């Protein structure tokens, strides 16, 4: 009996890990499995027959690939915009004392703390009052705004933890301010910037509420398409896209780990 307890005690951490992983991955596996389904009727909830139809014609559903492409474009541009702007804001907040610094710090935090629907509605009202045509641009501006907070938070934490002596050492070793920034500051801040950028991409890509309030009649993003489709019956292709995104994300993470390990092994 005690041996059983001992075994459990020794493997409890692994067991907990597996359970957590199962909890996280199981929905994805269902999505993956049902991407090979050939549903009867409009809804893809019941297994009927194996088929690779959805995988061979992923764009077989009207408007879906258009919305996917729109979402990717917006996510990419929002990521670039938010990362560049956010990195600069983070450096300013972490390194300099200036008037309005405390207010900026507080305001930057707001989009993360505020209910999304409030922000979405108020942004929509703002655009309406300014008579700006709803469409690609309004979505992009909105996305950059809420991604900015995450980039600033991630980069600021990184910059604050950086030893200022490293930059002084670079200057002491004949690096001009520009060289110091490129050779020392930026590489050291890179993990924070990358984290902020990845978060931005993910958040922008799957944002629904803010996008819904600030999009035009022709700018239907992928989440909006899925939402719309779910009223009528979700096509199997959505599962294909979901699975593909999941695989891409996992591949990216694994590749990152692998490169990191190889660097460590080399050193």
């Amino acid at each position, binding site marked *: 009996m005690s041996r059983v307890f001992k075994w459990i005690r020794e493997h409890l951490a692994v067991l907990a890990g597996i359970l957590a992983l199962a909890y996280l991955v199981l929905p994805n596996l269902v999505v993956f499995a049902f991407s090979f389904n050939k549903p009867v009727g409009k809804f893809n909830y019941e297994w009927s027959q194996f088929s690779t139809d959805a995988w061979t014609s992923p764009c077989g559903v009207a408007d879906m690939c258009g919305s996917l492409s729109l979402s990717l474009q917006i996510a990419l541009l929002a990521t670039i915009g938010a990362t560049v702007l956010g990195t600069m804001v983070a450096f300013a907040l972490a390194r300099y004392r200036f008037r309005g610094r405390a207010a900026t710090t507080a305001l930057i935090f707001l989009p993360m703390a505020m209910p999304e629907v409030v922000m979405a509605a108020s942004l929509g009202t703002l655009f309406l009052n300014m008579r700006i045509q709803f469409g690609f641009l309004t979505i992009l501006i909105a996305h950059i705004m809420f991604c900015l907070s995450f980039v600033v938070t991630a980069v600021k934490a990184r910059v604050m933890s950086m030893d200022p*002596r490293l930059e002084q050492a670079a200057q*002491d*070793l*004949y690096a001009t301010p520009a060289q110091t920034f490129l050779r020392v500051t930026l590489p050291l801040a890179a993990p924070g910037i990358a984290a902020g950028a990845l978060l931005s991409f993910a958040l922008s890509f799957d944002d629904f509420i803010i996008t819904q309030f600030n999009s035009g009649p022709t700018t239907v993003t992928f989440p909006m398409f899925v939402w719309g489709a779910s009223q009528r019956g979700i096509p199997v292709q959505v599962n294909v896209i979901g699975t593909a995104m999941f695989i891409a994300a996992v591949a990216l993470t694994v590749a990152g780990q692998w490169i990191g390990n190889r660097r460590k092994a080399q050193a």
Partner: protein
Amino acid sequence: MTEQLRDAATAGGDVRLTGIGKTYGDFTAVHPLDLTVPQGSFFALLGASGCGKTTTLRMIAGLEEPSCGTVLIGGQDVTALPPYKRPVNTVFQSYALFPHLDIFENVAFGLRRRGRKDVKKQVEEMLDLVELGPLARRKPHQLSGGQQQRVAVARALINHPQVLLLDEPLGALDLKLRRQMQLELKRIQTEVGITFVHVTHDQEEAMTMADTIAVMNGGRVEQLGAPADLYENPATTFVANFLGQSNLIPAEVTGRSGEDLLLSASGVRLSVPRARCATEATRIHLGVRPEKITIAHASETVAEGRNKLSGTVVDSSFIGVSTQYVVRSEGGGEIAVFEQNMERDTRITPGAPVVLHWNPAHSFGLDASQAIDAGTGEEAA
């Protein structure tokens, strides 16, 4: 490599600070001071934390802008030059190695920034000098503290600076390694002949390594001189207490006898050579180092012409090479005595009556207007 470094050193590496000072708002970190560090010397700035020694060093490096005064290196005024244009390199406290670069690239950093090609040979030679050749492709965090310290030295020295600045370079190392690195740094300095300016709060480290020490306190240089000179002839109570340990006995000058001043310490008559008295005041602190004092049982007779104090042993602690006694004296409060463990008098135990005696020429006189406990680390702030 060492020949090249020597050439760089002979190009002129004396540092001259004239009237240099630094204030932050109302706070004066460094009072305007003049300091000349001769070329090729090993110069130590010694003081407790917050005494302005690191600020002084950073002003030489260009990392801190002086509020007044000028910095000359090898005769050239560099006061207005940014750090990357000054012919000096720094070994930072806790090394500041670039964590994202390997050891090779850390050492090559300075050469690359000045557009040197073919850095491979030089870097390899430099890594060999500090015995880290096989670790060239490691990252800094994979090295031990002592190894990181050597990388920091190599990274600075490879640029053939006219002056090498060291900011508490051994502070993060354990005692044994610190001793080893002290000798190592001294060896490198002798070998390359570059001017070293070394900031430290460790008086033993300063005395072991430096040719000249400037003792700093409260943003001022208290005294400057060779280690033995500072130790034997401290000019202030701070130096007397901070550099080694001193017994300071309040005394009054009562007269003169030839070259000696006659003193009275609570009625006990003592003397000190006039030449060893740093003041003309009538109230002085008579200083004597613990190891200069001989301790004897009260029943023993003491030769004439020696300063004598009777007292009672309060405490004795055996520390191997010597025994340290604390004696409550009749004239001068508690006196510390270090006695070599050669022929120990077994009667000298706590409670025993003893007589302390020393050669008057081994004592020194300081102005009594100074705090008697300055630099002990226990003084009232």
